[in-house]
């Protein structure tokens, strides 16, 4: 059975430290206390996302409900696994327990983005990651779900703590904005005006489209593909702040950044653009030539990889390639072939472990504090060191601040 109602969270998971601070709560790394495998050698970890409710609003957070309801229905090797949900009735807290993933693309890309000594991500890794992302998204789209918030920090990748054939695997995470799109009860924009970090936001949304389609996820994947190749975000627009009544202001700088790299779309190429609210303004702007090939040098202009990128970054959402078709693209049948393990060597993890912040007795109340009182509750502190990983750089890159850029 999925969960055991009688058990408390502290009996099942021992907190190790904090790994994320999201919009809706905190994310902790924790150790699975009950060793299901029966093999005492194999230690397994989980990520516990704590949702604060009650004080902040009206009962259980709708974001938590959305994640739970969708992830309960989903099972795919490239979608994060929701292994448990725990409730603390007294604290009115809700914990989502996910299978642990050592990396995310944000951090992996940063490992490569080292100005003095640039090491591009190996093409085999790029291709495998892209292929797995497309697989996961194809599965979602087949199940009538749009993710709506694809960005590097929401795409997790497993590390060496997993068995060899499960390492270096994409796990698409963060379903807090995901939607079932089969005849939505009302236009999706009504509820939350702003979705998808603007750097990965599709042009039709930037120009004011009211309805979401699967195509917005494919635009974001195009942006991520380019970023994997170059280790740098492709369209880094300046986000305009929401103020007053305008919950969804025209993000003109972001559109400008796109036009400067892809050129301004023409009505012939994208007939539907004339119906979009902000087009009347944007169409008066200067035109630029397409310089995408110049920005993404790792993909030669005539190569299949470049061809796939242009199909993902197609302006017209109706013409943009679907996940299903993208998987059939020649890019994936050419050498190097994509694999289920994105690392070049399954026994070597070239990326540094996820930073784990020690627990703060002032902030991490409730379950998370059981770690500092370890020994009580029958819990043992984590003594085992993290699996050895071979660092990519002779000196580890400086710990980056996980700044929250462009968040909703």
């Amino acid at each position: 059975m999925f969960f055991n109602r009688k058990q408390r969270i502290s009996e099942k998971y021992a907190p190790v430290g904090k790994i994320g601070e999201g919009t809706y709560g905190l994310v902790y790394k924790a150790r699975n206390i009950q060793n299901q495998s029966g093999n005492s050698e194999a230690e397994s970890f989980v990520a516990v996302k704590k949702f604060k409710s009650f004080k902040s609003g009206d009962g259980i957070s709708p974001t938590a409900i959305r994640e739970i309801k969708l992830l309960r229905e989903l099972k795919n090797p490239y979608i994060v696994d929701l292994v448990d949900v725990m409730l603390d009735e007294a604290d009115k807290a809700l914990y989502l327990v996910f299978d642990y993933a050592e990396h995310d693309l944000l951090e992996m890309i940063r490992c490569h983005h080292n100005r003095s000594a640039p090491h591009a991500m190996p093409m085999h890794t790029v291709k495998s990651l892209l292929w797995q992302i497309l697989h996961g998204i194809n599965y979602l789209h087949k199940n009538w779900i749009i993710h709506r918030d694809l960005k590097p920090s929401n795409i997790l990748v497993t590390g060496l703590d997993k068995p060899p054939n499960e390492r270096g695997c994409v796990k698409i995470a963060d379903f807090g904005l995901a939607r079932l799109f089969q005849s939505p009860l009302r236009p999706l924009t009504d509820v939350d005006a702003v979705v998808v970090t603007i750097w990965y936001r599709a042009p039709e949304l930037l120009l004011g489209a009211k309805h979401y389609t699967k195509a917005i996820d494919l635009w974001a994947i195009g942006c991520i593909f380019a970023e994997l190749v170059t280790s740098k975000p492709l369209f880094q627009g300046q986000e305009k702040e929401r103020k007053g009544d305008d919950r969804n202001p025209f993000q003109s700088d972001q559109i400008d950044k796109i036009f400067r790299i892809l050129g301004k779309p023409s009505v012939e190429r994208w007939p539907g653009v004339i119906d979009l609210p902000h087009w009347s303004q944007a169409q008066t702007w200067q035109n630029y030539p397409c310089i995408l090939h110049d920005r993404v040098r790792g993909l030669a202009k005539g190569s299949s990889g470049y061809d796939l990128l242009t199909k993902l970054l197609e302006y017209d959402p109706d013409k943009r390639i679907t996940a299903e078709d993208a998987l059939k693209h020649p890019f994936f049948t050419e050498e190097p072939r994509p694999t289920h393990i994105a690392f070049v060597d399954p026994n070597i993890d070239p990326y540094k472990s996820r930073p784990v912040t020690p627990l703060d007795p002032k902030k991490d109340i409730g379950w998370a504090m059981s770690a500092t009182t370890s020994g009580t509750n029958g819990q043992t502190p984590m003594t085992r060191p993290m699996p050895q990983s071979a660092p990519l750089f002779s000196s580890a890159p400086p710990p980056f601040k996980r700044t929250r850029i462009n968040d909703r």
Partner: protein
Amino acid sequence: MAANFWNSTHYRHWLRKVDEVYKQADAMMKKDQSTFKEDEQNNIKVIYSQIISTLAMKSKLRQRVAATAIVYYRRFFARNAVRDHDPRLIAPVALYLAAKAEEHTLAAKIVVAQMADIYQADHPYPYSVIHVYDYEFKLIAALEFDLIIYHPYRPMIQYCADASFHDLVTAAWPILNDSYKSDACLRYPPYLIAIASIYIAGTLRDREMTNWVKKMNIDLQELADIIQYLSALYANPSIIRTSGPQVERINNKLQSHFATKIQNAQSGLAKKPPSSSRPKMSLKLAE
């Protein structure tokens, strides 16, 4: 997730395990017998399914949200006894949670006010938003976090369109509505309920429906069971129609049964410390 009913929790965890679900439900009915007679138990289910629909209408929520809430309500009482959990609270909480799951917002304050508004008894409606928040947790746990519910409305419309039975849509629709006053949603897959409703609607208009049904490539025995089950609802109208005095009688009975619990809870709430320390549950789960 229409593409994937067979992989859904609705199918895997509930319909496929219908025998298990019913074993529990029967045990709960037995547990309730000393407090509520069988026809009272039945009346409670019908009345509170109806109340969920009325609440949804008052908040201008779609029929679909009400239908989801009714399934939540019935799943909850398949695993819990009425004598331990007050339907007067579970019904609005089911709607409150269903609204969230269906991407609507319904403030706890509003659902409580509306419940108080339609409540008929000698006593005022005894619950507040605090109780709603408490029971939202208990409900979602009892549902085992399976929140996506498939309904027969959309498949019914689709089947009618495919077979050009355009006139049967409006006839089958109320049959589907009435099916939610029974346990059909716990027992049968929604696509079969849809076919059964079309069959009944057609037969009532003296249409020959057998040929169409035979072409559907479904288990005809199961379909016959559903048709029988739904038709039985109309044989004894009191099963699905309830009158004001009946509602009031049930509510007074619920009030006298739960009065002491509520009182205890309220004195508990008054003593509730301001924060962080752990308050007792305001309504103790009788397990």
